[in-house]
């Protein structure tokens, strides 16, 4: 099955992809136009966000097309689409800023808006200044996931609670976004370095499979209910907020049968790892072919799970184990599961890209040496930004809570991020760590950044609760 697919994936000739993406963008914009005509309001935030999504998706598809075929003209159109998306994104930020009267940094939604913006800017910078053209293949899908998440999270303008009314908020959050985007870039560059550094394709297979397995395992372990249901947080559509039974205790609803589907996907997702283990143990490369087929199968199943999840969790009322009656839920109530599922599909697809088009990728990317140097440079950019972000946060905390450091989880994790990157710099400068080890370190650093950004907000309690 995978073989057959490989044969179909001959380099697309000339303009096919551009025309297809162009048509898709035109179609979506036309749909949006109909919507505008109906609502009579062109510059609403929803429309701007929609335009952002459309252009970023187009850019992502074209960058991916470039990654697959190596056709140089794709990049030009991809850049153009990124520029247009950036324009819409900027307009969305400006609109929100104007409407709320404060810079858009006060909620997860607003921060995502700024994060995606910074990511797009840095992608263009990396492309124009350093010639890393394929970087959009990684950063644009991240931006797309960001915009999709934004569509789900609540969007009403929230007034600022007293603690957030400070100029230091803007300084602090701007620095944070810049630093995190620089970290994201160093992560993407480190991944590309690993490809250029002849990291074995089957090692990537194992890592891909293990990551998707981790995603599904954490969903199944925490949310699988008896009779094969999947429990999700209940959502109050009136207040646009999660439903709490008591302080800190959320109400969960159970979607029947979805748990079984998750379990099945978990098994299929685990199978490439099993085949990989067999191949290493028996020394029989035949198992690797099986493993690659299993990856292909797992992508189909993952997409199916994602679709079923979206269809069932988007709306509808479901029973709960903790309370009588039926309760509504929505995708916005489960942002983590959704991004996990989307992320799983995305990394599996990236693996397929690597499997099928590795020589092309290697030809297109800058040399391993250059990538290593640029990764280091981005960390050199990120580290002072992280330092200033922590310092401005401390100063602000001192103005607001009367203490510059109170070991709040977000603060502590920001310090941990700082320490990880400090470790990277020390090992690189004094021990001469180059190449692989430095790349792994950069990847670890970004993982910690992601945990600080999302994990701490949702999983750990603290003063940063509103962001």
């Amino acid at each position, binding site marked *: 099955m995978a073989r057959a697919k490989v044969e179909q994936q001959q380099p697309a000739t000339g303009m096919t992809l551009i025309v297809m993406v162009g048509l898709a963008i035109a179609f979506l914009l036309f749909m949006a136009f109909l919507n505008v005509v109906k609502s009579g309001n062109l510059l609403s935030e929803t429309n701007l966000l929609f335009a952002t999504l459309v252009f970023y998706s187009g850019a992502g598809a074209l960058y991916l097309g470039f990654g697959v075929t190596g056709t140089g003209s794709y990049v030009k159109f991809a850049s153009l689409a990124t520029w247009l998306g950036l324009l819409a994104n900027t307009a969305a930020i400006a609109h929100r800023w104007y409407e709320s009267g404060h810079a858009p940094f006060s909620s997860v939604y607003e921060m995502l808006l700024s994060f995606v913006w910074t990511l797009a800017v840095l992608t263009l910078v990396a492309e124009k200044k350093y010639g890393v053209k394929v970087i959009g293949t990684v950063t644009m899908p991240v931006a797309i996931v960001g915009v999709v998440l934004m569509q789900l999270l609540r969007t009403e303008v929230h007034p600022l*609670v*007293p603690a957030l*009314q400070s100029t230091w908020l803007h300084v602090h959050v701007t620095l944070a976004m810049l630093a995190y985007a620089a970290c994201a870039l160093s992560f993407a560059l480190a991944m590309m370095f690993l490809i250029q550094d002849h990291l074995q394709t089957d090692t990537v297979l194992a890592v891909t499979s293990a990551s998707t397995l981790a995603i599904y395992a954490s969903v199944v372990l925490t949310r699988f209910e008896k009779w094969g249901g999947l429990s999700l947080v209940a959502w109050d559509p009136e207040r646009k907020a999660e439903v709490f039974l008591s302080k800190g205790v959320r109400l969960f609803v159970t979607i029947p049968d979805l748990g079984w589907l998750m379990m099945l996907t978990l098994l299929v997702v685990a199978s490439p790892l099993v085949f990989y283990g067999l191949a290493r143990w028996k020394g029989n490369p035949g198992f690797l072919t099986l493993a690659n087929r299993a990856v292909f199968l797992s992508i189909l199943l993952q997409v199916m799970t994602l679709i079923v999840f979206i269809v069932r969790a988007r709306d509808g009322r479901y029973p709960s184990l903790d309370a009588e009656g039926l309760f509504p839920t929505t995708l916005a109530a489960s942002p983590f599961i959704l991004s996990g599922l989307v992320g799983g599909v995305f990394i599996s697809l990236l693996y397929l890209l690597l499997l099928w088009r590795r020589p092309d990728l290697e030809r297109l990317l800058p040399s391993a040496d250059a990538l290593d140097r640029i990764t280091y440079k981005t960390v050199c950019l990120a580290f002072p930004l992280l330092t200033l972000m922590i310092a401005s946060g401390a100063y602000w905390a001192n103005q607001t809570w009367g*203490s510059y450091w109170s*070991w709040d989880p977000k603060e502590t994790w920001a310090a*941990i991020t700082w320490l990880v990157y400090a470790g990277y710099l020390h090992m690189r400068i004094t021990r001469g760590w180059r190449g692989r080890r430095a790349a792994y370190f950069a990847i670890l650093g970004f993982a910690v950044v992601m945990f600080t950004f999302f994990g701490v907000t949702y999983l750990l309690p603290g003063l940063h609760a509103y962001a």
Partner: protein
Amino acid sequence: MGVNLAALAHKTWRTIASIQSGVVLLILVVILSAVGTIVLQRPATDPDEMQSAYSPQALRIMDAVGLTDVFHAWWFLGLMLLVSLCIVAASIDRFPNSWRYFSRPYKYPDASFRRALHPQKSLAIADEESGLVAAERALHSLGFKPERVVREDHFAIFAERHRISELAVYIVHASLLLIFFGTIVDGLWGWRGTLNLNEGQTSNMVELRDGSTRTLPFAIRCDAAGQENYQDGTPKKWWSKLAVVEAGRDVKKKEIVVNDPLLYSGVRFYQSSYGPNGKIDKLALVATPSNGSGQKQEIGLALNDSVSLDADTTVRFAEFFPDYAIRDGQVYKKSNYLENPAAHLVVTSKSARKDFDVWFPPLDEVADNSKAPYQLHATDLKMGHFTGLQVSHEPGQWGVWSGVVLIGIGLAFVFYVVHMRFWAVPVCDPKTGKYSLWIGGTANRNRDAFEQRFNHLVELVEEELKTVPPASRSGQVVTVAGN
């Protein structure tokens, strides 16, 4: 024995100063801090919540080893001290080398250095002097101040920029130590607490984090406090008008809001909350005689006030519950929030020598309102408010802020200020007797950008060489060499 001790001390020093121990300590700090964010921490978490989250045995063990207050545990402080020690030792260990490098720049490159250096370039020149002049002019045009170095009978041109960059990493490490020093000073002599004031109240007692009370040498009075809301009801602004009272007179007044504290003699007062204090300001009532004869009266009562309704009867406002609950015929306070208020009034008749209990709302299981000589109806209720202040004294924070500024400057130097050096040496080939100008350069970071700069310099030197007349200065060369 003495030798052994010295050897041991040396070995210990090497271990502390090594990068390995630094990294091990960093990893330990990372792991323990992560644990501190995952395990619920005292005193931020309610004791009840702690007990429901962990089993009693686990909680006892975690309390004993300090896992429930990681960041104030002795072992965490010890670890931070070790980290500081490690930074100091590593800096002391490496500083002499850097200092030598800094204070005695390497100006005349010898033959082996010239062989190994990258980037380098050799240009054919007519004689020594024309090469030196061309190199000087090219460096001048790039904004450098080249100097001529004479070593025995050889000449060289040396130019450099931003030598301070070599020491920048020590600035960063020193500022980290300064920050640590500031936090240690705060840990030893600083304190933090809360002070809740009702409007009009004066107090100098601050309740500290550990539950003890600290008496300030001056007092704080809250003249007024309030809250402004957005249209949707979420709070927009909390404010308090505070006055500092010392020796009986007001020495300072300020209206504070969140993010804008009051500072007096090293103690800061921050607005942190505002809300009902659960105390009633005034209760408005309408009283009608139970026997139907006589006038309706409107009265207003503060807590513990009493008012006479007629010659025989008085009413006293005895108790108030902002949020009440009844158990076994007794009324209890559930919370300080005005959720479910109850007021207890006592109507006293002198002639009957009897007290009648009246409750709002009527609580039949506690008292029968109808027996009293007056029928009372509550019409309005005004609640008192308190302003919540965070109080802190942080004598070490100046160390922290100067450390923060220094670390910013230091990092800017570490990452963006490049120490670059250029050398130009006229070399005579002993076999052919022809001269060439050896040009070399080095930078301590960002080497690929430096290489472009170097190539640019080489181009400039080549151009200058074309314009320098070869023979004109040859006489001067002889005199200089003769010196």
